[in-house]
């Protein structure tokens, strides 16, 4: 569900300055993680809203683990949303987003790329949860330290775990 946007100036503040600061600092990153998984901006923003709401309900804005929690919860929530999609809506979402890597205007290239994108999302949905989350976080631009904090693993293990996740991803994509 996406609520209609309102003029920010007309909304009475319902959240603390600390939470607003957290939201402003992390919203784009959270949407980016969800977008890597879902390839659909509207759906990614819905996931981001839900994740921030879950955090708001249960955690103080100044919690030292806030960013890590948001990153992990976003990856898991987006993967859950991905698995919940039916095949048709997944195809529609894939076709709705242009590829930056194949920014050709040739419609044949675009269709092929969209089919690839759909398969990629299907592979992500099939991978073990931690592997898929690790890929989503890494390719959304998080550092090894940020991934370690989000997934509660040692930073020195992230490289190994990431390679395993990439290997599993390649095997599934064949």
């Amino acid at each position, binding site marked *: 569900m*996406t*609520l209609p*946007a*309102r003029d*920010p100036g007309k*909304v*009475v*503040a319902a*959240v*603390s300055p*600390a*939470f*607003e600061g957290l*939201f*402003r600092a992390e*919203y*784009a990153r959270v*949407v980016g993680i969800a*977008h890597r998984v879902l*390839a659909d901006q509207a759906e*990614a*923003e819905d996931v981001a*809203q839900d994740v921030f*709401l879950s955090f*708001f*309900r249960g*955690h*103080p*804005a*100044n*919690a*030292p683990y806030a960013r*890590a*929690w948001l990153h*992990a*919860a976003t990856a*898991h*929530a987006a993967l*859950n949303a991905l698995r919940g999609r039916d095949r048709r809506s997944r195809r529609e979402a894939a076709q709705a*987003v*242009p*590829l*930056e*890597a*194949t920014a050709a205007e040739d419609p044949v290239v675009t269709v092929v790329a969209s089919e*690839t*994108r759909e398969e*990629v999302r299907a592979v992500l949905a099939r991978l073990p*949860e*931690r592997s898929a989350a690790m*890929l989503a976080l890494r*390719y959304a631009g998080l550092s090894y330290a940020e991934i370690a904090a989000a*997934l*509660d*693993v*040692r930073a020195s*293990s992230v490289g190994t*775990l990431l390679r395993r996740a990439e290997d599993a*991803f390649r095997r599934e*994509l064949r």
Partner: protein
Amino acid sequence: MNDTKIEQALGTAEPRVNTDDALARFQARVQAEGIAPVASVARPRVTSRWLQGLAAAAGVVIVASALTFSGVAGSILQIFEPKTLVAVPITQGDLNYLGQACAGLNLQECMGGYGTFEWTTPPQPKEVTSRSQASAQAGFAVQAPTSVPSSVTGDPRYGVINKSAATFTFSADSTKQTAARQNRTAPPLPANIDGSKLFITGGPAVVQIWGAPSSTATSPGQANPIPTLIVGQAKAPTVSSDGITVDELRGYLLSQPGISPQLAAALRAIGDPSSTLPVPVPAELAVSHPVTVQGVQGLFIGDNTGIAGAVIWQKDGMMFEVIGSFTESQAIAIANSMR
């Protein structure tokens, strides 16, 4: 496929977000749904649920160990180190009795009523990626089963808990106040127990889990799978005292209102409490009996449905456990294959 191609495969156009609009939508939703934030006191980081479970289990074992006392008075003397295990049936009646005694207090408050429990080195579980790392961090050779049933597949996850230590200081004042809050009269705390200390150690411990939940941080709406096999190995816990008359202490604790006469009698019946770890077994739900494992006497515990079983044994100063959805013979075979 190289990293660049994975990047392309997972790549999507970076979303252009309008954070102001998003924040406005969020504020509107919070107001419309009347959602209140939590208080601004930061809670500790929520770590992996299964690791939290390990920490809780380790804490329970360490605290439970402190309930078994024997030995003689002295300066700092070790009064408990398990060498054998014995099942102590805990009935629903015992649990009800404990619940009434604590009168709605949580377990920590209930235990705290007798004195002060402080972790000097708290258990801090963490995950490592291999058996060799687990051995290195625990400081002992981690054993693993060389043969498992076909239902157990994949690689295990490894959790390590550091050697933990705690001190419990008995307090007559705390005991009186707790009893007064509950409108009860506690048996008087002998003067030589008031202020005396117990030094409790547990671990290091290593847990290997097959089929462990793969998610780590809290994940909204996600169900965790049930592990297929759990193998635990730990240095045996110890309890030392700074000079308590232990028979007095044992008698005093066993007469507390939280322990039913039946349970106290079962605990008193243990032949050598200085070296026997009582393992609580839910009497209505599980069966237990001694078994021979790795050439020593251990304990098999199974639920009455036959779908879950555990084997626990102690050998060479280490405690071991194998837990999973196994029959007794399967559980013992796994235990005997540990190398």
